[in-house]
């Protein structure tokens, strides 16, 4: 292909290509490219594209190029879940000296994280407990026993790796049992590794890992992160369908089996599944990635979510992203749940388990009465993961009527998680009767809201409840007042004032732990209202300060520090100076102590 002589011209070749020769001055382009005026369109097109390429390539590595900015980095930022919970944001580690799970020193706090935290937080909590058990000679023996008993009784396979490593370092019966299990695991690994090599040496035709019994396979892969490179590469080959032996069912079995293990070395193979959109493997691969704390996992899932059109897939991806702290799927999950498609409810509940907040508790709790047991179970799990105290009443009612022991076990797990979260947040459960009354009130209001077609009517009712609440308060009937304010808040979920009033009321009556819960709800609804309202922000700051002082006196320094850090993250400029100063002092004291 010959290139026409270059003639300097006014028009830029690149912009001509961008806009198209049908809209720019074609004669000018021909002159610029050194073509005759009657040159055919085909010749013009060829010359133009070649010219653009040659201009671009000529600049490669040149001085001009050095000064041109390269394309901006794609945004892989995480949309952090909007929960007003410090726990939800507590990092696993931090280099800045702030509070993190790796720096917690109180075993009780860590055990609470173990019950209520996200997967990465729970894993970090297990590891930290292990560090304390081996390094903290001053740990009181009841705490030591509690920690060891808890670790031994943990049956979560997604924590099996960390738990095994901790128990192996202990002396005593638990340590011996763990080391014996490790030995058994190593023997299993040796057998499998030999078979893997035999497979690739063509001495065996059967894929060795899917040939194991399910329990052996789960045992082997629960510690995937300890597998040698050769076995990992073999697994990668099976996942990518390059082993030449496994069929789709075997591939699916393997991908499902590696899910709890969370090995980042398998991310590239899982990427091939996600991008190839293999129908059989997609769902287990997504769940696998959600268990792997790796930057690539998030980028992959985010990309897949943005491209996904199928509702089931979007919900699955939303849940996976939620597990990694990305809340972009929250709106979609909520919308899907409210539409009520039976085929999608389970997926929406699973997504809200990772994404949902206090606003979702009411709606999710309604599914505890669903005829489908699988949906009931999903709702229980979701409420446990959200771990909001308002779910305690509906869960306890479900437990009373639950017949299957498996469901009762799930309810107990969920309830335990809620209590653990409340402990970490310095909250306390409301007395059962009061909580029941509040729950029934809000439930009734929520049903009114759902069935009413007239927004003005609903607003009017909410306002009516609000004023009634003030009336009861004036008459000194505090519980009735709070019930009215709860009703107003339930009728108008985006209206923060009733919730603020509840919080202030509780605070003034010394129910500081309950006031914290209400202030957190208010922050979730309308943070800027609180921060710009002097009375509200001062009341909130006081509540957090007093609660921090109280838990500190109980020896729960980690929780106290968490409370102080949480309130200091708010804009306190409108709060009373005395409270601000006291909080800052406490924060400085905590940091000094931590060093």
């Amino acid at each position, binding site marked *: *292909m010959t290139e026409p002589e270059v003639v300097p011209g006014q028009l830029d070749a*690149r912009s001509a*290509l*961008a*806009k*198209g*020769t*049908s809209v720019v001055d074609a004669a000018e382009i021909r002159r610029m490219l050194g073509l005759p005026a009657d040159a055919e*369109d*085909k010749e013009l*097109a*060829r010359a*133009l*594209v*070649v010219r*653009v*390429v040659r201009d*671009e*390539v*000529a*600049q*490669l*590595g040149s001085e001009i*190029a050095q000064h*041109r*900015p*390269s*394309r901006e*980095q*794609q945004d*892989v930022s995480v949309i952090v879940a909007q929960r007003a919970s410090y726990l939800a944001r507590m990092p696993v580690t931090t280099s800045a000296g702030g509070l993190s799970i790796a720096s917690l020193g109180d075993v009780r706090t860590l055990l609470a994280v173990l019950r209520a935290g996200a997967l990465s937080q729970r894993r970090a909590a297990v590891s930290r407990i292990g560090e304390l058990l081996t390094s903290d000679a001053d740990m009181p023996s009841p705490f030591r026993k509690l920690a060891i008993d808890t670790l031994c009784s943990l049956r979560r396979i997604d924590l099996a790796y960390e738990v095994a490593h901790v128990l192996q370092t202990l002396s005593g019966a638990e340590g011996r049992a763990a080391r014996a299990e490790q030995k058994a695991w190593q023997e299993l690994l040796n057998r499998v590794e030999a078979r*893997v*090599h035999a497979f*690739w*040496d*063509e001495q065996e*035709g059967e894929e060795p890992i899917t040939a194991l019994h399910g329990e052996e396979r789960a045992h082997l892969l629960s510690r995937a992160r300890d597998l040698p*490179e*050769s076995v990992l*590469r073999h697994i*990668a*080959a099976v996942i*990518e369908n*390059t*082993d*030449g032996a496994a069929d789709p069912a075997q591939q699916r079995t393997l991908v499902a089996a590696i899910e709890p293990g969370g090995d980042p*070395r398998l*991310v*590239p193979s899982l*990427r*091939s599944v996600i*991008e*190839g959109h*293999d129908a059989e493997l997609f769902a287990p691969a997504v769940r696998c990635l959600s268990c792997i704390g*790796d*930057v*690539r*996992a*998030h*980028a992959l899932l985010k990309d897949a979510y943005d491209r996904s059109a199928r509702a089931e897939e979007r919900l699955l991806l939303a849940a996976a992203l939620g597990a990694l702290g990305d809340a972009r799927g929250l709106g979609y999950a909520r919308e899907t749940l409210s539409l009520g498609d039976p085929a999608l409810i389970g997926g929406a509940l699973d997504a809200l388990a990772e994404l949902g907040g206090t606003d979702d508790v009411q709606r999710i709790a309604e599914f505890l009465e669903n005829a489908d047991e699988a949906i009931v179970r999903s709702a229980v799990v979701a409420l446990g993961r959200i771990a909001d105290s308002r779910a305690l009443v509906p869960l306890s009612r479900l437990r009373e009527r639950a017949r299957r022991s498996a469901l009762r076990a799930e309810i107990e797990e969920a309830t335990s998680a809620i209590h653990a979260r409340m402990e970490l947040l310095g909250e306390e459960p409301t007395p059962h009767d009061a909580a029941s009354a509040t729950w029934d009130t809000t439930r009734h209001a929520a049903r009114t809201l759902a069935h009413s077609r007239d927004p003005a009517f609903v607003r009017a009712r909410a306002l009516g409840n609000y004023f009634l609440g003030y009336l009861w308060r004036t008459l000194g009937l505090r519980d009735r007042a709070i019930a009215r304010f709860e009703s107003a808040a339930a009728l108008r979920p985006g209206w923060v004032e009733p919730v603020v009033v509840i919080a202030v009321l509780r605070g003034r009556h010394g129910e500081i732990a309950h006031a914290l819960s209400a202030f957190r709800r208010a922050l979730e609804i309308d943070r800027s209202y609180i921060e710009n309202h002097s009375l509200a922000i001062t009341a909130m700051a006081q509540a957090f300060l007093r609660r921090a002082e109280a838990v500190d006196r109980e020896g729960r320094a980690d929780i106290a520090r968490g409370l102080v850090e949480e309130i200091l993250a708010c804009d306190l400029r409108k709060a009373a100076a005395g409270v601000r100063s006291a909080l800052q002092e406490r924060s400085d004291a905590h940091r000094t102590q931590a060093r």
Partner: protein
Amino acid sequence: MEAFRHAARKALRELGAAAPPALGHIERANFDVRVGGESELVSLRAGQSGLVSSCSCGRAGCAHVQVALRFISGVAEPEVASVAAAGPTASEFRPSMSAPLRKADDGARAEPLARPALSEVLDDLVTAAVRTGITAENAVSVQETIDRLLHLAGTPLPLGVGRFVGRLRYALETADVDLSAEVLAAASALASDLCASEPSAEARARVIDWIGAPRGDEERVGRVSDRIFLEVAREWVHGTERAQIERRYLVDLGSGDVYREQRVRRARGASVGPCPRLIDVGLAEVDLGIAPRCIRLLQYTSSLRIERGHWDSLLAWTERDFGALVRSYREKAQVFFSLAEPFALVSPATMSRGSQLALVDAQGTTLLLDTNQDPGAYRRFEELTLDAVPVWVAGRLVDRNGHLMLVPLSTAILRGDKLCHERL
């Protein structure tokens, strides 16, 4: 066959007068065998336990192997004109690594493509795209021309055509003027190449890369044998579907040559094995196209055992002069346009952590890491290299905004005295 032997005896007599008799033994013999109009490659190797045979048709004990064995052993041909080939049983059909693989999915075709028609549609494509403009939305004429191209290219679609269409669609969807220009310039060049009566070496390479090379065409297909390869990187690139084409990058540890083995996702037609792996190649075919050249492994074994010595051998072939990379890239881009997707295995002296990570060679020339194609991989690489300069980084070279960049696919980091390979 007797004619073949007769010719061999004659050639030996002619040699024998001029050269002293040579002593040695045959370890492997390769034959092109035609049975019933179909030509296959048969390889016979003397192993410790006897003769090991393999055929490119993938069937054990097939007619092609029988013909080759009869030739070697001097057994007379049977009276029937053809021998029914044994079909594969389920137990035979695991793609044995010591038996060549089926060729069905590598783009080899029974009928030749209609080159003049392809040339014309490529010209139409360039003309339509340039007329409409790259930033125009829903350019119907361009889409229709692409559809015509795909129809003409037929089934199975050559991987090169699929990749070409995938890149063009991506460039148009993202209004990437530079990439569009590269792809369209490649289309222009191919349009000329397909009709050239005496194509240049570059033209032949472009066409081979785009539509593949017919099996057995010695001008377009070369062979390599008895090599040790290390697969160092693997990626999935867009074809007519997203992430459709799997690409494996194999480095010949003896020569440093890099090859790419490609397959359409989930199709058979490529070797078995994970990445990384050590491959003992008995015989392979190489398309004499654009580097890294496409390779088909016909006789090989894959091993998961990669010793430190293999990694050290690889290190000897890494590029340490990034200025040379830029020059080489520029040359290839000016001749092959978007058809050239160079692979690089680089060893940096240091790293630079400005607004974008860069590898730096001993002369201070920087090579930026691409953040666009896989932001997750970029960030993972950033994490891995926080405290250490990588021993080497493997990836595909791209250019963006006047900068040469590396799309990182894998890297090796020294941890203590252990070299750790990581796919990104």
